[in-house]
């Protein structure tokens, strides 16, 4: 398609740090400026961004299209719900730890099975396995609440309980918003290090050329497995953060169309960019929320956006913006 413009000198990946800090600062100020509903939407967007970042380690960096990432999101969410239901845990930090443990467990198992295959077989295998979890969550209602799902009350953040009387909206738009923001920043930094690490390079090499990767001595399957693990854990963390925001978890987030939405978000933002999934998740969240609010034909709207996107803007929002930026830059410098 498009080859990146030749860079004359090797640019440090650290150059984006000031930009990232600026964006983080804006995100930190937002709840004081915009109305509460917008803050909640952004919190949703940031949570999904973590999930899609994880997903994109597989698609964008390893070249594996998972159509079953709903599974890991759901595992994170249900892990939290089970901790509430059976262990009466209230601490958000414990929720995250539990979600990580649960998603490590499930991704280890699923990953072991799935990374033996690539391309469409990988996609279908991930899909089939996620559907197993969905059907269990759906049918074992005495454990999972079935379609009713499980409720998760307001958690304690860093050991601080929110009083009974305190306004939940205020909790969501301030306390929890910042909590999500901090976890989001941590996740972004971690993922950024991962993809810019020697390991990340190896994954990209495997994505580009599996055969050659083998012949520089990489154990391709092991690398894919680790990528799968990291990817699943990120998505699991997102699931854990999402539950208190949503208030409950239902089997809907394990059903395969939710996996489709995760793919949608990555492609919307541009899966060949680090920032693409983040942008895609936030934008998709707005798009879907407002589409559902304004028309019963929201599915068609999203479908048309998707089809046009893959036809006209295959590099997504960020990829296209970069192209335009580069184009403008060249025009300007002439």
């Amino acid at each position, binding site marked *: 398609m498009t080859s990146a413009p030749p860079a004359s000198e090797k640019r440090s990946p650290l150059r984006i740090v000031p930009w990232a800090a600026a964006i983080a600062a804006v995100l930190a100020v937002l709840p004081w400026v915009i109305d509460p509903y917008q803050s909640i939407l952004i919190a949703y967007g940031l949570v999904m961004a973590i999930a899609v970042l994880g997903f994109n380690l597989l698609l964008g960096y390893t070249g594996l299209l998972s159509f079953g990432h709903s599974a890991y999101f759901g595992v994170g969410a249900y892990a939290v719900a089970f901790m509430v239901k059976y262990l009466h845990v209230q601490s958000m930090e414990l929720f995250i730890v539990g979600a990580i443990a649960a998603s490590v467990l499930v991704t280890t198992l699923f990953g072991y099975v799935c990374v033996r295959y690539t391309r469409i077989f990988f996609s279908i295998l991930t899909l*089939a396995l996620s559907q197993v979890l969905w059907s269990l969550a759906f049918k074992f209602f005495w454990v999972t609440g079935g379609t009713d799902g499980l409720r998760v009350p307001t958690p304690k953040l860093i050991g601080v309980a929110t009083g009974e009387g305190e306004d939940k909206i205020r909790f969501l738009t301030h306390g929890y918003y910042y909590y999500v923001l901090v976890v989001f920043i941590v996740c972004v930094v971690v993922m950024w290090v991962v993809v810019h690490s020697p390991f990340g390079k190896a994954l990209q090499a495997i994505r580009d050329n599996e055969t050659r990767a083998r012949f520089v001595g990489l154990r391709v399957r092991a690398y894919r497995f680790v990528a799968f693990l990291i990817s699943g854990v990120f998505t699991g963390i997102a699931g854990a953060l999402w539950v208190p925001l949503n208030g409950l978890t239902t089997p809907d987030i394990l059903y395969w169309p939710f996996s489709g939405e995760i793919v*949608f978000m990555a492609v919307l933002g541009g899966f060949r960019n680090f920032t693409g999934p983040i942008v895609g998740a936030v934008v998709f969240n707005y798009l879907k929320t407002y589409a559902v609010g304004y028309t019963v034909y929201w599915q068609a709207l999203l*479908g048309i956006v998707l089809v046009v996107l893959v*036809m006209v803007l295959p590099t997504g929002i960020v990829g296209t913006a970069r192209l335009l930026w580069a184009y403008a830059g060249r025009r300007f410098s002439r």
Partner: protein
Amino acid sequence: MDILVVHLFNALLYASVLFLIAGGLSLIYGVMRIVNLAHGNLFAVGAFTTASAVGVWFAGSTSALLFLLVPIGAVAAAAIGAVVEPTLLRRFYRRPEEYQLLVTFGLLMILEDVMRFLWGPYPISASVLFEKMGSLHVGDYIYPRYNLLVIATGVLAALFLWAFIYRTKFGVVLRATSQDMRRASALGVNVNLVYVEAFTIGCFMAGLGGAIIAPSQPAVLGMGVDALVLSFIVVVIGGLGSLEGALVGALIVGVIREIGISVFPEIELAVLYLIAAGVLFVRPAGLFGRTA
């Protein structure tokens, strides 16, 4: 004892419809190497079209006319296929899978709302045919005659497809294109024509699946998504791209579902997906697929 016969018929009934959907999905994958996520909704289009033709537009006509109208759903689905393949999907055959899956996922969402727009939110039923045919005795039980017609349709479709693919010139061309598109093209095959024909046939099958069940089950929104995942199980078990596989896969799923609902209802769905995952794990190309 008689009840076993009823169970068996039920399993065959389910398998017949699943074969029609999954067979189409598999055929399309076999020729074009594209997994069409919108396929489930072509099944739904078939059901809605037939349901409204029989139950609304021509309601009150003679039964003979109504029976003749049943295949109209298949024709509608085929027509959509014939339009969508050359205008939309063709651009994606050489693009990576993520784009193929996404464009058909988008199509799935669009079709869902097109149906909502055309047919409204309510279920539509063409049950008059189902009722008119009545039931026959199976020992102590009775069984709807119409369901036997559905089973017969499934069997006929399988036979017809087999003859078509292995006994006609077009079948040869189709198989050649499926095995090596470039070589077929070099040998003078009009590959684009083969593609649009194969896609249309695949959609026709899905539409026929929907059309044939419309009299016994109402057409409802959302039926496509559910049908798609089940036919996915079928093609995964049987092997993507293999019609024999779709047939065997449909039978397996039909039988397991029937047993599952009676014997292990809690894990009926999980068992189906686990079988699919297990087959994929052991033989990623499925029981009948060519190795990838």
